[in-house]
């Protein structure tokens, strides 16, 4: 995970943008009349459980930082599930959003990839299979057959899609593999569900679980990671396709430049991120493959 490792994706992505911006310039013009807010008005950014979205002081700091940097009022819109944020995007109630890779692929006709956070220097993360730290019997997801299992969100890759794909790889039906499953609607709460013993196992975002080890060590250390998934593209920032090219670029530039300022670095440190990269949809090929396996496109 070398931060200095050459990442070609942004360059590739930039080319793609040029094409995209050409396409969307017309669309942006058409939508200009009804997108009054996009022109110098308030920017609405959807925040999802893709990160520790219940850290309100962090969110306030980030919003103020963003507003100061963009010279625009910024509103963070928080919802408890990806689904609600996806709906807001569809309804054009948001200009930007930080979503999971899985919803991004679901919404790829509605949104554009804006930027991808760099976690440990790379735009990747994984799914962790966690159990209670006292549970030494479980070594893989196969050992959790017939147990109670906590998923994060039905639109979460690492918290839903990835473990189900893994079960499928075992030749089992994810619908009947566990005795009971439930959604906690947040990665943090998956950790909580497993730590409290409510669920014997849970699937959780590696970034969130590892960040929790710093933020809430008492909680996170009550869980043990038994399986790590392959790497997936990190939950991206997306912009609605109706957002003007100018706004898109302003926001993208702001995100990519976050690591350039002291204030930005402080914020990134609190987010446990290293910066942002422009990213590329190709990052999410692995997720798309799993989706196809479940018959989703």
């Amino acid at each position, binding site marked *: 995970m070398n931060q200095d490792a050459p990442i070609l994706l942004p360059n590739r992505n930039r080319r793609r943008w040029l094409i995209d911006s050409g396409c969307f310039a017309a669309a942006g013009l058409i939508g200009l009349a009804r997108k009054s807010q996009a022109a110098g008005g308030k920017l609405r950014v959807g925040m999802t459980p893709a990160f520790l979205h219940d850290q309100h002081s962090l969110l306030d700091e980030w919003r103020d930082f963003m507003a100061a940097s963009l010279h625009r009022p910024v509103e963070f819109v928080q919802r408890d599930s990806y689904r609600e944020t996806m709906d807001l995007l569809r309804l054009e109630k948001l200009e930007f959003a930080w979503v999971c890779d899985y919803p991004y692929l679901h919404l790829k006709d509605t949104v554009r990839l804006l930027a991808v956070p760099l976690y440990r220097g790379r735009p990747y993360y994984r799914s962790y299979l966690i159990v209670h730290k006292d549970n030494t019997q479980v070594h893989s997801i196969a050992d959790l057959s017939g147990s*109670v299992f906590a998923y994060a969100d039905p639109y979460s890759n690492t918290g839903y899609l990835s473990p189900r794909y893994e079960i499928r790889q075992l030749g089992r039906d994810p619908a009947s593999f566990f005795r009971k499953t*439930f959604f*906690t609607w947040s990665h943090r709460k998956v950790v909580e569900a497993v730590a*409290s013993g*409510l669920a014997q196992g849970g699937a959780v975002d590696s970034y969130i679980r590892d960040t929790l080890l710093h933020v809430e060590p008492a909680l996170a250390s009550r869980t043990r990671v038994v399986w790590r998934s392959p790497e997936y593209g990190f939950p991206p920032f997306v912009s609605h396709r109706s957002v003007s090219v100018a706004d898109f670029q302003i926001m993208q530039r702001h995100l990519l430049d976050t690591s350039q300022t002291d204030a930005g670095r402080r914020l990134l440190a609190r987010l446990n991120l290293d910066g942002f990269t422009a990213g590329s949809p190709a990052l999410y090929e692995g997720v798309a493959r799993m989706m196809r396996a479940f018959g989703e496109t």
Partner: protein
Amino acid sequence: MNWLFNLSFRHKIPLWTSFLISFSIFVVGAALMTRAYEDMKNAVVISAENLGHTLANTVAPTLLHDDVWRAFEIVRSPIRGESVKTPVQVDAVVVLGRDHKIFVSSDPDTLPMLTEAAALGADWRQLSERLSAPTGANWPLVLEPDNSGFLYLVLPVTDKDAQLGHLVLRYAKSVFHPWFIDTLWQGLGLGVLVLAVLIPINWYWGGRMAAPLVDLAQRMGTMPETVPQPLPPDLYPYDDELGQLFHAYDRMVLALRDKATLENEMVKSERLAAIGQLTAGIAHEINNPLAGLITVVDTLKLRGDLDPRALRSLELIDRGLTQIRDTVAALLVQTRVQARPLNQHDLEDIHTLIQPQVGKRRVQLEWSAAMPAELPAPASLVRQILINLLLNAVQAAGEGGHVSLWLGRKDGSESFLSIVVRNDGALLGEDQLAHLFEPFASTRASGHGLGLWVTYQIVTQLDGRIAARNIDGQVEFVVNLPLGEIPCTTASA
């Protein structure tokens, strides 16, 4: 046990009242504690019911939508950390599905989801049976299984008319206990405080109550050997039965004293009377042969042929016999004298008569005789009494002493003449007072000891009274003589 009842009232009253106070405080305290425990249980049930209704309402949608996590967050919300220990702190919240399996619980470690309630132990089996009972239950169902450390409260979880399951609140009784023990300690502390105030008051009051009784018992214990002292007047200045008892005791003591004094007087007069009789008898017996002897001696002396030696012997015998006659005559007090009333001159005579003695001993004499020209009292006898008492007093007062006479009618009485003679000589001892008026009772080297005897005899024969006492550092003789017809004759002693 008998020793307890034999204890002095000084200890018994405070002990018994202390026991009663402690017992009362204990009984009242125990009643209040029992009540406090019941109240606490009721408070728990009421609090549980309120909490239960709220939780049941909020948890209902999660049951409908099978939203385990939301349900978990709801049932966990009333659970607080270890540090919070109040009796109304719920220990566990459990939502049972229609099938009596745990849908969710606040403590998944011990009450894991999807577990049959009946499989969770005796408490839960009993609870499950109650819920399955065909008659149904009255909500809220409060269950306190025997031999269980928990109290359960069950409410149905309903949506509209449909029953979705049950909400079970579990309370640990072990949490009650420290709280209850706290209350108990507080109660005990208060009780001890009340005791600390009441017991000293009670000991003081009991002691005060008992002290006069103890005093009374001690005084009465000395009877009948001695006449007890009366109680100090401020010992118990109240009019209750105890006060009345003490008053009665005081009256009794006074009566006993009077009686004892009277008896003493009687014994004394009887003794003196007996001595008088004996003396008179002896005097008569001596007088008769004595008269013969004196006559013989006189006759012998008239004979001229006696040699001088015999004459000297006869004179010796004559003087001896004369002394015997005088002595016997003194013993035989004769009050049969020609009576004339006492007048001022008699007193002047007496004053003159005793002057040589007064002058010789340089005694200060105070003379206070208030009397009319004449008094119906036998002059010669009163003179003898006065001379005897005054000479006696002058003798007793000694060199440079002080003697006073008071003569008159006491309080203007028409029927008594009082004579009071005082001297500031040595006080009379107890023994001297007892035998003062007996013949030959003198303690002085000089004197034959018949002066007071004679005085006593005269006073007694005149139906008067004579008494001696020590008063204000002086010796006082008081004579009271009845006035009236002057007796012409009196019995000779």
